[in-house]
């Protein structure tokens, strides 16, 4: 072991890391961390698949919907639910790490705070993709869902991007609710929003007033978008809903974070 014995340091010889510190080592370690976490595995890979098995086999699954059947419709919905839950859990970890002082520790390195959030978002996307893949594998094994392969893929990709909304929601809630309690709120909260937004039960089965309210809730818009490759239906107000909630959650997360950064 040798350490060079320099008596003077030359500040001008030092370099700043490229891309604000963005790198693969952090991504790999963060992913490994997520996959080691038993709770994440249950939320991400097991629970949504189990929900699909519970809901996906109800009577009428073989009826046609757009370019597929009802089982495919339920599959797309459950994939969204699973990925949203995963992304929200990932988002809430940002706040948790802040409360642990890890963000402060990272402020002693060249890592740019925006790059940190970017890497967290990437990890959340990968985990979301795993959640979507898990539900799809369960759906394929169940053998009831039918839709053309390209629709299957389109639904998955669109769903993945829709989950960014919930990653932002996770960050926001994580800041508002301190410590590890964020998921205690996000778990039931997302289930409730999923019921209201027509993820678990189609909206046309609700009374008219409930449906009017449902159109304003955050799961409604993304659910319509995520299933649109299958249903070929996408009301304009669903798109407005999705964009508005995404903007709102990102603004909320940014607001809480900037408040928090003031004291690092």
């Amino acid at each position, binding site marked *: *072991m040798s*350490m*060079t*014995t*320099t*008596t*003077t*340091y030359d*500040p*001008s010889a*030092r*370099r*700043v*890391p*490229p891309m604000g*510190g963005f*790198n*693969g*080592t*952090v991504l790999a*370690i963060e992913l*490994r*961390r997520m996959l*080691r*976490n038993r709770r994440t595995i249950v939320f991400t890979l097991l629970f949504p698949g189990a929900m699909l098995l519970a809901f996906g086999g109800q009577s009428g699954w073989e009826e046609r919907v757009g370019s597929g059947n009802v089982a495919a419709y339920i599959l797309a919905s459950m994939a969204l639910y699973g990925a949203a839950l995963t992304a929200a859990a990932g988002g809430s970890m940002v706040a948790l*790490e802040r409360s*642990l*002082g*890890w963000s*402060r*520790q*990272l*402020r*002693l*390195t*060249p*890592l740019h705070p925006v790059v940190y959030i970017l890497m967290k978002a990437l990890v959340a996307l990968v985990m979301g993709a795993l959640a979507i893949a898990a539900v799809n594998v369960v759906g394929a094994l169940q053998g009831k869902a039918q839709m053309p392969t390209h629709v299957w893929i389109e639904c998955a990709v669109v769903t993945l991007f829709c989950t960014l909304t919930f990653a932002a929601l996770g960050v926001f809630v994580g800041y508002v609710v301190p410590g590890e309690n964020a998921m205690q709120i996000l778990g039931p909260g997302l289930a409730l929003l999923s019921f209201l937004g027509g993820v678990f039960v189609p909206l046309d089965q609700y009374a008219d007033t409930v449906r009017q309210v449902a159109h304003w809730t955050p799961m409604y818009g993304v659910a319509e978008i995520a299933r649109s490759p299958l249903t070929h239906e996408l009301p304009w107000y669903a798109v407005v809903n999705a964009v508005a909630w995404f903007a709102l959650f990102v603004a909320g997360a940014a607001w809480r974070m900037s408040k928090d950064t003031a*004291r*690092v």
Partner: protein
Amino acid sequence: MTTRPNPPAVRLSGVTKAFGAVEAVRGIDLELNPGEIVAFLGPNGAGKTTTIDLVLGLSRPTTGTVEVLGMEPRRAIARGLVAAVMQTGGLLKDLTVRETVAYTASLFADTRPVDEVLERAGIAGIADRRVGKCSGGEQQRLRFAMALLSDPALLLLDEPTTGMDVEGRRAFWSAIRADLATGRTVLFATHYLEEADQYADRIVLVRKGKVVADGTGPEIRALASGRTLRAHLPGADRPTLERIGALGGVDSVETRGDTLIVQAKDSDAVARHLLTETDARDLEITAQGLEEAFLSLTGDAS
């Protein structure tokens, strides 16, 4: 780069920091020379952590300027020139020791090898242990390992041994000491006088957000190394007191009722004078320990 050839490791000029109505730092001017080991000594609430945060660029001074190696603190951080071991927190419990170091290493442009740093901090043997399962002392050495990664020119330690047992403290300081030959500037905050005296070339004493003394260990000790003489001397008049005050090495003379209290460096001369030239009796001489010296310099009485 617009830096002087040999800029001071740290330069604070006229720095104040207020949090609302609370003034944590009330005007500090301080220059640290490259290669110095400096103790930032003061009681809790003296503004030590706030000052360290300013040097790290974690917060901005309300007034005044902070420079690290001739540049703005965040620029020095981005170049890995400054590192710090903070008091608490700052670790992810579910990572292993090695993962934590590798994670941190990946964020710098140039770093020491992970294994070398683990070795230097004395935690190579627990590299695969989860951070949550490490003792307080081991976690502190992990923070030290992380701080060594970028081979910083300036290392800040904020109360690095708080909460450690004697053994942990010794292990931590021996790791730091092994590293001192490298020419690094080290600034450590502490409220243990002994720690400051033992490991620092220079002690900067702070109290209520201001520097109250600055010098080597022996210099600081000399500042308050006098003795206290107490004697029964009823009816001491002004000329008597003035004559005592004029003796060499007398810091203060006061009376409390019939009791005379003299603070002096040369207690023998004062004692001789009191017993031969005045009616003083029941003379008591007490030495001021290092601890009292510290308290007299940082306490409210000073």
